[in-house]
């Protein structure tokens, strides 16, 4: 029946470069090519116009995706886009993650990293066009096959639910029945995409495709990986970044049943910070942990071993009053902005280092052979470690194989590859594969932390109540300095930090940045520097409004109404959308209605710069004591353009509230003697079940291109809460608010 089995491995390329459509394609033996159960029963090779799609003659449809699943729902949302344009029967669609050895080639360039990179809320944004074209191209081929069979023009065919129908006589052929003819056709060079108003799947709340394996305990995360012959390792790391091993005494370890040996390795710096360590290898993880307890290591901590966050914030404060190191954004008369006239207000806001605290502590399995290396586990950016692994081992990058697993919570932690490099450095010194398990203490003490940050804000206005100047001096321990080294030309965070995080029409704006060095590993934590900047911006605009005795809602709306759309610095930022989500949140919480005694509402809104998506929060609290409050209700209003899966979107916004409230109320990493002081969930305690308030999620129906959704639900939570507290009489200036004595019930 099957003519040529090898054809299965040869996937068609849409068109040559130089215009027209080019669908993603794969090199042979890679990606979305696992044999489906019914492959043997197939009458011919499957239709595979792209790396992302396979249709069997049996009717089985597999839609593949390359972004990593870590709870954000890409295994459902990305395939939905293909299925939409394909007019597939969603119930029959199987979704499958591609293995990383799939060498995807696409005409477009990834936003950052590669086509497997999962971060920055970019998955749907970057794959939207490609996924649509894949579905549309396959549909066009199936329609052509049917039209040829019926000897009618393609225009007399329609498609729905995985079948082509002859409009003249209602005859119908399923996609499966058409595959053997469709595979003989060329992949079209140009395809017609649907008008969004004709979408039938996109915009529908659909159940997640991967739930059933999760609910039976069968989903395989990195920590569940088993490789034949593997041993286990736990690692004692130098408590100070940049330190080294002075001496190791593992004599007591030898008394522990199952102990194998210890392995030393050195740390690294830019682009990736890795603590030096001593790995304890054993036949099972418990033996490794027990042996580690009796391991004695003397460290040379280096000379950066006396830093503390108390000193860092003192440095921030004094530095914030001096001339900033880097100019970021200037509008109008900067000199005037620096010397405001008229009425003015000045405030400082601060937020601490934060750990990701994923439920699955990081882990990785690595196996190193003479000329090759293989690793197994979760990674949000599998392309990133490859050059450094190659350098570390002195092997060709193409002999490095990365096997990806489900990620038990990412939030940016697994964008950084310190834990992968560490596993490789250990496995390099052992003949069998090594599974490196981080315990919770390791995970919290050796994270890539969100930088501590500090903001000096100044604003001035005329006697008749017109805003004149806005100044924002951002200070932090830069992630870019860590990644690129101290000589980086761009120390401020992605997209110039606060330059893009401002949407109010003020004639003179001055934003600047100063990096303050600190010996602690840094990284991106969900909603990154936008979270850092929106807290002071949306707090301070509220503070200015109150100072001017204006209503904070109307004050914002007025300043948004005259603001032009921002397209500088690669932005596509629409103040009308910033205003629309704010108004929606205010309306849904009943901002203008009478309130019960001791109830207060706080608002905050923002544009999530690089998505671009927009969200506002309205939070109602009840004061039950001086500085003691209860959250009554939370409203989130979101505009992320076309919403692919509204239920997935709601999931992200609900979850974003929990994540952001953890930070606003109690999340804090402190450092003494260059050591992180927190070590578990009792002192780095995320929001608990009983602390989760009710949340309503509303969204704006839109035909704008989809924006990201994983992060936009976070930045306005803390300022909305703080603005409610300010309305009640006492404004928090630093996070977490427990530092200033606020309590919640």
């Amino acid at each position, binding site marked *: 029946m099957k003519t040529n089995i090898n054809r299965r491995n040869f996937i068609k390329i849409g068109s040559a470069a130089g215009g027209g459509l080019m669908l993603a394609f794969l090199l042979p033996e890679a990606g979305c090519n696992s044999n489906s159960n019914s492959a043997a029963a197939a009458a011919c090779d499957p239709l595979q116009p792209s790396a992302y799609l396979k249709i069997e003659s049996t009717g089985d449809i597999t839609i593949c995706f390359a972004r990593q699943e870590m709870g954000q729902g890409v295994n459902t949302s990305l395939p939905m886009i293909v299925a939409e344009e394909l007019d597939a029967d969603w119930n029959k669609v199987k979704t499958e993650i591609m293995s990383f050895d799939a060498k995807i080639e696409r005409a477009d360039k990834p936003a950052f990293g590669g086509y497997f990179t999962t971060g920055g809320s970019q998955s749907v944004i970057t794959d939207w066009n490609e996924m649509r074209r894949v579905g549309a191209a396959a549909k066009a081929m199936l329609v052509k096959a049917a039209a040829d069979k019926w000897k009618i023009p393609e225009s007399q065919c329609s498609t729905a639910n995985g079948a082509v129908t002859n409009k003249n006589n209602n005859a119908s052929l399923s996609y499966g029945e058409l595959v053997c003819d469709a595979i003989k056709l060329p992949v079209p060079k140009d395809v017609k995409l649907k008008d969004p108003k004709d979408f039938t799947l996109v915009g529908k709340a659909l159940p997640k495709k991967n739930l059933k394996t999760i609910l039976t305990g069968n989903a395989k995360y990195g920590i569940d990986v088993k490789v034949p012959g593997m041993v286990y390792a736990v690692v004692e790391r130098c408590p100070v970044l940049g330190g080294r091993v002075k001496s190791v005494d593992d004599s007591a370890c030898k008394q522990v049943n199952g102990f194998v040996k210890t392995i030393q390795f050195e740390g690294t710096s830019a682009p990736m910070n890795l603590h030096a360590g001593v790995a304890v290898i054993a036949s099972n993880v*418990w033996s490794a942990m027990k042996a580690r307890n009796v391991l004695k290591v003397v460290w040379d901590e280096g000379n950066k071993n006396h830093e503390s966050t108390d000193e860092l914030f003192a440095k921030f404060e004094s530095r914030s009053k001096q001339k900033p190191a880097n100019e970021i954004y200037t509008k109008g008369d900067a000199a005037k902005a620096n010397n405001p006239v008229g009425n003015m207000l000045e405030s400082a806001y601060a937020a601490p280092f934060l750990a990701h605290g994923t439920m699955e502590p990081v882990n990785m399995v690595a196996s190193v052979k003479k000329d090759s290396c293989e690793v197994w586990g979760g990674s949000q950016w599998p392309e990133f470690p490859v050059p450094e692994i190659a350098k570390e081992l002195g092997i060709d990058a193409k002999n490095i194989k990365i096997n990806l697993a489900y990620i038990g*919570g990412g939030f940016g932690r697994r964008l950084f590859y310190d834990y992968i490099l560490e596993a490789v450095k250990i496995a390099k010194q052992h003949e069998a594969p090594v599974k490196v398990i981080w315990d919770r203490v390791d995970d919290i003490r050796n994270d890539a932390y969100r930088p501590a940050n500090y903001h000096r804000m100044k604003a001035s206005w005329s006697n008749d109540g017109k805003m004149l100047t806005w100044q924002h001096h951002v200070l932090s321990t830069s992630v870019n300095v860590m990644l690129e080294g101290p000589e980086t030309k761009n120390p401020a965070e992605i997209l110039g930090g606060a330059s893009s995080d401002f949407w109010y029409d003020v004639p003179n704006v001055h934003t600047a940045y100063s990096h303050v060095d600190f010996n602690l590993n840094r990284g991106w934590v969900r909603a990154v520097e936008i979270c850092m900047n929106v807290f002071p911006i949306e707090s301070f605009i509220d503070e200015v409004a109150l100072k001017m005795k204006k209503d904070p809602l109307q004050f914002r709306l007025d300043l948004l109404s005259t603001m032009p759309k921002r397209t500088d610095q690669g932005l596509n930022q629409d103040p009308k959308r910033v205003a629309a989500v704010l108004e929606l949140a205010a309306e849904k919480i009943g901002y203008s209605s009478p309130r019960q005694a001791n109830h207060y509402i706080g608002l905050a809104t923002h544009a999530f710069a690089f998505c671009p998506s927009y969200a506002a929060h309205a939070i109602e609290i009840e004061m039950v004591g001086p500085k003691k409050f209860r959250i009554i209700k939370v409203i989130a209003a979101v505009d992320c353009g076309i919403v692919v899966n509204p239920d997935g979107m709601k999931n992200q916004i609900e979850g974003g509230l929990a994540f952001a409230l953890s930070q606003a109320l109690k999340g804090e990493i402190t450092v003494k003697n260059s050591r992180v002081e927190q070590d578990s969930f009792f002192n780095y305690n995320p929001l608990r079940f009983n602390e989760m308030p009710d949340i309503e999620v509303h969204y704006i129906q839109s035909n704008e291109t989809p924006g990201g959704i994983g992060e936009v639900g976070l930045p306005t939570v803390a300022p909305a809460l703080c603005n409610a507290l300010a309305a009640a009489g006492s404004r928090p200036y630093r996070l977490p608010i427990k530092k200033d004595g606020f309590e919640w019930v």
Partner: protein
Amino acid sequence: MAAYTLQINDKQYKIEADPKMPLLWAIRDLAGLTGTKYGCGIAQCGACTVHLNGTPVRSCSIPVSAAATQKITTIEGLSEDNSHPVQQAWIAEQVPQCGYCQSGQIMTATALLKKNPKPTDKDIDVAMQGNICRCGTYVRIRKAVHTAAEIMSKS
């Protein structure tokens, strides 16, 4: 080292382990059932929750020797086909995001419903506050526990 026969989900697993090895690692590494997750190792997060004779316990903090003679139920023992009312409710409310903590959440909720077939919000708060979810699925877990109670009352 000592030999134990663990009774997990009505099956027997013969293992050899250090008597002090936490039940969690025995279940995961020796019995090979990886649905039960490691989260903190000190009973702070609930990811490792299993049932011991029907009572929810943190398997990271119980030595294997103490569990050897008892009836252990893990997430794999609930049902293989998601037919258990709690799994059904978790599907109905589309609870999980990353899913890593959900085995523990489900085992805690199942034990609660066995003891208290019609829990109030307050009851759910008390039962669930030891289980952390960093993805923030709490709102849906609450709904799902009520939904499961309804499904169970009908069957």
